[in-house]
Structure formats: structure tokens, C-alpha cells
């Protein structure tokens, strides 16, 4: 325990930062590398702002959601060859439609980001406009996906046909359900922004919605690569 550890840290040092080896701080000792003698939550730093806490909590949720998707991806990767003599991805996938779906979702992620910029500037109509665009693009994506599923089931390539198709419908359908839930959330947020304006807790919800929508696009990137592009090539 060095002498420096007991000196009051400089006012702008965050005592709770992971791996926070600040130059401002005297030396080691205390917990970890922080070198602060106080336990978390009782120091002069106080808790982080609600926006940071809400965002961090939602980030943890998104990561666990991604871990859930990784289980579906693992199932798909294992069962991909199990076509039971039925159609393979090469026979079924229409890459043109997947390209259109991808561009819709990517653009919706972009407009969602712009709605974030607009709500930071406290522009109500800008926020509403970009949220509406996001929702329309997301709905178009979902329609294309439903159309694909219907065509596949009509050809007798439904989820009951083979292990490969069960895994395919589970993985892609799970992503589609997330997009659908996101659309419901988006409509709710549009109404709340309209009625309540930019109160702090509405801003928190907008932040979380943005994170959710961008995470859906990240999952889609993995999905169109692993399922459609690699599947159609094989």
C-alpha cells in the first residue's frame, strides 16, 4: 500500500473504471489496478448517469441476445448437410431477393442512426420522419422474408422437410421475429416522441431502440453471409 493510494484522487478521475490506470492517480494498491481504497458505489465519483446505466444494461441484454443467436447459428452449421435427400440451399436460395433484403435493412440502420442525430438535436419532426423511414424499410424487409418463406413452403420445402430446413427456418425466422418486435417498438416510440417529447426517459428508450435496431443489422450480416452466400455457393 503506497502512500499515494490514500490521497484524494483528482476530481476528474473515475475510480470505478475497469483497468483505469490514470496518470492522475498516485500508484497501485486498493482494488485491482484502480488503486482506489473505497469499494464501488461509495466513492466520490458516485454512480454513473442514468443514461449510461440504462445503455450499459441494454448492451448486456443485446450481447446475451446475440449469444442466443449463436446457438441457432451453431445448430444451423451442424445440420446444414442434413438435407435428407431434399432440396439444398443451392436449390432454394434466391440471392437477388437476399441482396434487396440486405440493402433494405442496411438503409434502415442508417436512417435509424439519423433519427438518433435528429433526436439529439431535439428535432421532433426529424426524429419522426427518420423513424418512419426506418419502419417502412424494416417492414419491406419483413415482407420479402415472409414471401420467401411462403414460396419455400409452397414448394414442399417447409421446416418439416429436413433437419437443414428446420434449422434454416428457426434461425432466419428468429431474426424475422426480432425485426417484427422492433417494428412494434418503433411504432410505440414514434407515438411517445409525438405525445411526450424528449423527456430524459424517452431519450433512454430511443437510445435502447437504436442499439436494438443496429444489433439486428449486425446479426443479419452474419446471417446473409453464413446462410445465404455460403449456402448458395456450396
Amino acid at each position, binding site marked *: 500500500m503506497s502512500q499515494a493510494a490514500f490521497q484524494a484522487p483528482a476530481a*476528474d478521475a*473515475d475510480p470505478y*473504471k*475497469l483497468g*483505469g490506470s490514470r496518470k492522475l492517480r498516485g500508484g497501485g494498491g486498493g482494488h485491482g489496478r484502480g488503486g482506489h481504497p473505497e469499494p464501488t458505489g461509495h466513492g466520490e*465519483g458516485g454512480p*454513473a*448517469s*442514468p*443514461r*449510461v446505466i*440504462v*445503455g*450499459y444494461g441494454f*448492451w448486456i441484454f443485446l*450481447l*446475451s441476445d*446475440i*449469444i442466443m443467436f*449463436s*446457438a441457432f*447459428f*451453431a*445448430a444451423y*452449421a*451442424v445440420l446444414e448437410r442434413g438435407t435428407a435427400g431434399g432440396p439444398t440451399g443451392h436449390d432454394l436460395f434466391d*440471392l437477388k431477393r437476399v*441482396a434487396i433484403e*440486405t*440493402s433494405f435493412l*442496411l*438503409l434502415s*440502420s*442508417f436512417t435509424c*442512426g*439519423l433519427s*438518433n*442525430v435528429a433526436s*439529439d438535436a*431535439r428535432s421532433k419532426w426529424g426524429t419522426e420522419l427518420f423513424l418512419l423511414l426506418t419502419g417502412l424499410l424494416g417492414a419491406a424487409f419483413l415482407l420479402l422474408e415472409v414471401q420467401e418463406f411462403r414460396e419455400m413452403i409452397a414448394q414442399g420445402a417447409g421446416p418439416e422437410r429436413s433437419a437443414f430446413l428446420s434449422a434454416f427456418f428457426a434461425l432466419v425466422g428468429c431474426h424475422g421475429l426480432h425485426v417484427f418486435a422492433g417494428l412494434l417498438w418503433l411504432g410505440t416510440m414514434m407515438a411517445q416522441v409525438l405525445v411526450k*417529447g*424528449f*423527456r*430524459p426517459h424517452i*431519450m433512454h428508450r430511443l*437510445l435502447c431502440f*437504436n*442499439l436494438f435496431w*443496429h*444489433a439486428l*443489422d*449486425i446479426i443479419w*450480416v452474419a446471417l*446473409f*453471409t*453464413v446462410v445465404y*452466400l*455460403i449456402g*448458395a*455457393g456450396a
Partner: protein
Amino acid sequence: MSNVHAGSGDHEGLDREDSAPGDSRVAKSVIAYVIGLGLAVMLTVASFVLSGTDWLYGPSLPVALIVLAIAQIGIHLVYFLHITTAPDNTNNVMALVFGVFIVFLVIGGSIWIMGHLNGNMMPAHQLGQIGGM
């Protein structure tokens, strides 16, 4: 609730020491989103073009596509989710690293173990003989 706009809630997000994910003073601007969109479009187009042509040696194609996908996911994280290496983002990055670790364990472990199980499985015609007895 009359004057929430001018209140302290306005700058609530601007914590000096921590950033919520998706919340960065440096990167959050229209320009960041435009750059992100441009890079993401380039990588997406590259993926689709590569898979539609035979410019690459066939067996190496999946590897190339996965590399492009990981690059694009990185672009999304930096330009859309604003996850950066700045010190106010340490907590977010640590959570992300843990999540990625679990994802690789789940996917890599499943493929590895199931590959070995498939390799050790009795060929189908022998299974049929056992069933017939």
C-alpha cells in the same frame, strides 16, 4: 414537466467518464453514419459479387466471405453503435469481448464436437444391418 428541454436532463448523456453504447460525443454525427453506410455498402457488395463469380478459388470462398462479414460487423460496431477504444468506453468493450468469446465457444465448440461425432458415426448401411437383426 414543462421545461424539461432546458433542464439538466438535456446534457444527461454527457458524462465525462462513461459512455453508454451508441453514445459518443466524438463519433455521433451525420458524417459518421454516412462513412459507416459507405463502408458497409462496399463490403456487402464485395460479398455478393464474390459469391456470384468464380474469381476466387472455390474452397477459399467461405473464408473470404466470413472475413468480409467480420469486417462489416466491425464497421457497424464503430460507426453505428459507436463502440470505440476510448477510455470512456472500456466497460462496453469488456462486455463485448466477453460476448464474442461466448459466441466463439458455442459455435466453434458445436462444429468441432459434431464434426468428430459425424466422423465416428457408423456408416448408414451397417446401421441398417443392426436395425434388421
